[in-house]
């Protein structure tokens, strides 16, 4: 029993990280039906920004997050206003291909500046600290990541349903045209959504960089993990995204327990099985 308990707990905690990958993706899809192919590369970009700030300013990576998060949020606002808003419309090709081009640009720009060598954020003792809970020991860092994910998703949920901004996000999601009659500048709302998404993405990037090593090509699988969490959880459900992340995380750690080479594949297979039996995800929004 304990043999399985340990990977399951690790998987749940890993799911927190995946939920953070997914939350930004889910948010921008929810508000403006945009799927950002460069999402994973933006996560990795955040890891690199954290690397540079923590090295240059001598900061702990978690403290660097205080700089990385607003920087990425600002970048997200600008990206949406200056570039992505020009691609919005009924045709799905322009946003898809523009974010695809962006993905290639970010990857190769990172290669140019940082080389292909894997990097890691050095967080000191916290990386290896662990707590004994009953028979299993739980890493402090994965626990912090998971708690942060729960907190972030709780805040997003609260923002969506209890603030004027959240109301504007939901109204924009319902009717992009009519919302403007309420005096709401759609371009600004879209940009705020992207800023918020990239703020979450930045957090995900910092945690990713502390947990594992990363390189410029690491974005693709981060996009895929986030995407799988969104689809498993069900579109339009923020808590579902957390559940999706956890299911994916557990599938991966159990897969790794069977065979280390099977970790990622196990996650993909669970995703495909859920797509086959519950195409709308496990917890779709009811409407």
């Amino acid at each position: 029993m304990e043999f399985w308990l340990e990977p399951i707990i690790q998987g749940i905690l890993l799911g927190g990280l995946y939920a953070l990958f997914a939350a930004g993706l889910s948010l921008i899809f929810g508000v403006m039906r945009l799927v950002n192919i460069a999402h994973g590369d933006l996560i990795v970009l955040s890891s690199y920004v954290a690397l540079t700030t923590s090295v240059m300013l001598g900061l702990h990576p978690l403290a660097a997050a205080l700089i990385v998060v607003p920087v990425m949020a600002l970048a997200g606002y600008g990206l949406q206003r200056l570039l992505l808003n020009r691609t919005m419309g009924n045709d799905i090709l322009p946003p898809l291909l523009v974010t695809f081009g962006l993905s290639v640009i970010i990857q190769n720009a990172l290669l140019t500046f940082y080389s292909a060598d894997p990097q890691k954020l050095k967080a000191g003792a916290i990386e290896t600290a662990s707590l004994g809970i009953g028979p299993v020991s739980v890493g402090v860092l994965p626990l912090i990541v998971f708690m942060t994910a729960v907190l972030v998703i709780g805040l997003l949920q609260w923002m969506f349903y209890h603030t004027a901004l959240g109301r504007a996000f939901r109204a924009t999601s319902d009717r992009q045209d009519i919302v403007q009659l309420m005096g709401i500048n759609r371009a600004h709302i879209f940009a705020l959504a992207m800023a918020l998404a990239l703020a979450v993405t930045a957090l995900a990037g910092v945690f990713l960089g502390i947990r594992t090593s990363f390189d410029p090509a690491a974005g693709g699988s981060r996009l895929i993990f986030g995407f799988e969490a969104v689809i498993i959880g069900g579109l339009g459900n923020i808590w579902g995204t957390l559940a999706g992340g956890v299911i994916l995380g557990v599938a991966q750690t159990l897969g790794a327990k069977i065979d280390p080479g099977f970790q990622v594949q196990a996650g993909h297979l669970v995703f495909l099985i859920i797509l086959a039996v519950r195409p709308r995800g496990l917890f779709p929004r009811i409407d």
Partner: protein
Amino acid sequence: MTEALLDIQRLDAFYGDFQALYGVGMQVNRGDVIAVIGANGAGKTTLMRAVTGFLRARPDAVCWKGRPIGGMRVDQIAALGIALVPEGRLLFASLSVEENLMIGGQLKRKGPWSLKRIYDLFPVLEERRNAPATSLSGGQQQMVAIGRALMSNPELIMMDEISLGLAPVIIRSIYEALPGIIGEGLTAIVVEQDIAKALSVSSRVYCLQEGRVSLTGPSGKVSHDEISRAYFGI
């Protein structure tokens, strides 16, 4: 002569290559209630879309208090105090009744309208305030749409086909509420298929036919014959 609140001059409007309005002119003074009538496809909704900024217009084709507003963004035009109750209501489905009203008040313009005033006008909305807006009956949804527009405390309210698809008894009750709305010194443009209804609430009528103004005059003075000629172009 006082300056018109809304002055539309030689307004052309296009959907792609298709021209939908040809040199439309209209003067709306403060306190006016204007009826816009015309057959399906005559350009009534297009006119609303051009005034609210959804369709591109030449800057001086639409003037608000003497200031050209054609080509401005929809949200900027709304912020000036021009509200639209769109055809088909188009409420926000994932917002409750009260949230739909509150988002209408997002502009925070000063004026008499508040949640409380809307609930006084349409008491049934207060009972259903937490229900999803699109779960209401058609008539109640229309009340939400009108309330949503009023919440911005507009100076001009435009109502596009508010009786479309509603039962006659509901239409009557909504029209009975209209004087209470317009009595607040509000200026209104009412687009309506029901000619008798349109004439009864308005002070002036414009008839559109194939994208052109085919008739205009004081609502009490236009004759039945004139209207049918302007309406059908016979």
